[in-house]
């Protein structure tokens, strides 16, 4: 049983560069159990999904991306991908809701679409999150569209997330009447409901953890549902607390290590042992900081999941491996 089985919309945020795109992708793979359709969305115009999965740049339209992580019995679901850009979303929105006819074309010709999507307060965000909303609660006007069991959003970073989904406030306030207000009110209903979970990705470092704390506070203030915290790039944890303390204090038993390394069939040189001890010390210092931050993350009182740091970088295989780890830990 997953921790989020009632959730239809998984929003993945976090500090820049902590692994939002990586985690969103792995989560989509993990959620795609047998018979399920999962949609992975990106909204920042960077074609990050295409790069990660090594496919051609994605258009504004849902594409079959890959199959999910196999279940125990080998069955697997399907992952689709969607790259949402504000201009296409606005044009789609206008044609879906307003029969503007000539005016619609004029809007484009006079640069209104361009203007609206670059500056008008919150308009860009409402368009992007509006399309995400549409993918979750399919619009009857969108004939033949796939019904997804889950939608995963590779979202903007923590600093901008509340603004990104808390569209009710800004745009609703600006257009106090009219259809946009009604529209953004319905969207808020979904975003603030238990069908949504906003997950935060962090590293065990001071700045990202601080951003996670601030992010959670802001989500709570806006009554947006806080999901789990995914702790990414965790260093290996196979040294005991005692060994770590000794490594830091420089009191690891040099003789014992020499003997063991020799027993492992490796030629022992003083340089090698120096290296091992130095590496152990730096690792232990890093680990001490990580453990400190891990305690802080624990104190947040939300479910946490951990993914290891891959020294070789993240390729497709690593994404599936991460998906497996997220499933094991109950995130999907």
């Amino acid at each position, binding site marked *: 049983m997953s921790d989020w089985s009632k959730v239809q919309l998984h929003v993945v945020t976090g*500090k*820049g*560069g902590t692994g939002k795109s990586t985690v969103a992708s792995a989560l989509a793979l993990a959620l795609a159990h047998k018979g399920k359709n999962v949609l992975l969305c990106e909204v920042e115009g*960077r074609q990050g999904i295409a790069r990660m999965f090594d496919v051609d740049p994605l258009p504004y339209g849902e594409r079959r991306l890959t199959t999910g992580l196999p279940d125990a019995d080998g069955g697997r679901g399907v992952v689709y991908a969607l790259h949402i850009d504000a201009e296409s979303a606005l044009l789609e929105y206008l044609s879906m809701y*307003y029969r*503007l006819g*000539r*005016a619609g074309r*004029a*809007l484009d*010709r*006079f*640069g*209104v679409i*361009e*203007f609206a999507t*670059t*500056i*008008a*307060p*919150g308009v860009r965000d409402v368009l992007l999150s509006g399309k995400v909303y549409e993918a979750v609660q399919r619009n009857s006007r969108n004939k033949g569209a796939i019904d997804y069991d889950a939608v995963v959003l590779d979202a903007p970073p923590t600093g901008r997330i509340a*603004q990104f989904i808390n569209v009710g406030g800004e745009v609703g306030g*600006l*257009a106090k*009447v*009219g*259809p*946009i207000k009604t529209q953004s009110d319905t969207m808020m209903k979904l975003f603030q409901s238990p069908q949504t979970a906003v997950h935060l990705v962090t590293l065990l*470092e*001071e*700045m990202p953890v*601080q951003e996670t704390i601030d992010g959670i506070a802001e989500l709570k203030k806006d009554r947006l549902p806080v999901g789990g915290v995914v702790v990414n790039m965790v260093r*290996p944890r*196979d*040294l005991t607390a005692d*060994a770590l303390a000794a490594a830091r204090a420089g009191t690891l038993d040099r003789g*014992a*290590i020499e003997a*063991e*390394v020799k*027993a*492992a*069939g*490796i030629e022992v*040189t003083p*340089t*090698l042992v*120096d*290296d*091992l001890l130095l*590496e*152990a010390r*730096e*690792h232990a*210092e*890093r680990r001490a*900081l990580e453990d400190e931050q891990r305690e802080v993350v624990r104190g947040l009182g939300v479910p946490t999941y951990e993914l290891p740091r891959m*020294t*070789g*970088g993240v390729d497709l295989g690593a994404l599936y491996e991460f998906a497996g780890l997220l499933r094991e830990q109950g995130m999907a």
Partner: protein
Amino acid sequence: MARRTTEHQTRVGPTSPSGRRAGPLDVDAMLADRRTGIIVCCGSGGVGKTTTSAALALRAAEQGRNVVVLTIDPARRLAQSMGIEALDNTPRPVTGVVPSSGGEAGRLDAMMLDMKRTFDEVVESQASPEKAQQILANPFYIALSSSFAGTQEYMAMEKLGQIHRDAKKTGTYDLIVVDTPPSRSALDFLDAPERLSSFLDGRFVRLMMAPARGPAKLMTAGFSLITNSLTKILGAQFLKDLQTFVTALDTVFGGFRQRAQQTYSLLQADGTAFLVVAAPEPDALREAAYFVERLSEDGMPLAGLIVNRASPAPESKLAAEEALAGARRLQGDGSGSVAAALLRLHADQVRLVERERELRDRFATAHPQVPTAVVPALPGDVHDLDGLRQIGDLLADSASAG
């Protein structure tokens, strides 16, 4: 912004005439050179721009220069230890600066940029108090000044221009070190003024401005069709706010563009040194490569690349596979062997170092003329002057280590 290529500057990047590799980046020579008046640290987010800027500024001050560092988003503890956690948009003296070698220390001031405040101040200086109030309260202005992509970059340039003008007048500083905003692309810093200008010159903005400027010649049938549908979708208040905003653009922001142009030329001048900071990771180095190419296109003086948070290379030659095989042999008996764990750590380290070296080599092959400094990752965060000094030493060491 006009792109200009000047012949007298050092050309770097793929267009450079010779394929010879540049040596290491000599940071101390750069800081000692009195002609260096501005140092700009660029790079994608999280790579260490703020840390590097602060470390360079401190080192320069301790070597006797009078320095101001303009930081954007320092980590909280770093801001505290530099005494700039209060965002008041004015440089404050940093305490604890000590002369590095017998000589006399210069002065070090630091400030943290308040983007919105900088923007507001410009508006206040350009418009009558009444008009300024009207603009500051306009929802479109609020959006532009707080969330328009590029505003932060643009305001960093604005502030740099201000500080530079003041420093020239009063002689307070002889070196300005600039940190850049945490954008995902280093190019955003150079593109921001252009983006803002092209927004202000956009078709729709010009159209909305036309009625304010005189006879409503442009109130064509097409235009009223637009205003009608905007009113239908967004309500009448929306259009009114928009009109106010656009009118303000006309009166207030004309001067903006001109100043941005001046700051841009300042960046192209010889007294400026760009440093590109990157982590030894594919994304960050790709961004660094774009940036290096762009600098050379725009005739901007690139001083070098700083590869920050590199994994320190082991001295011994034990290969990763061998270390792992050894660890497996030790683990055969199932006990938690310390040596096995250390061998695995060693294998990780070797792999990281190899991967990073390969990435750096690839960069150097494509951009052979970029002097480079490699700064190892410290085990802990950098959050006080001692930490900054350590980074400064490592930056300078990189030159002697080759």
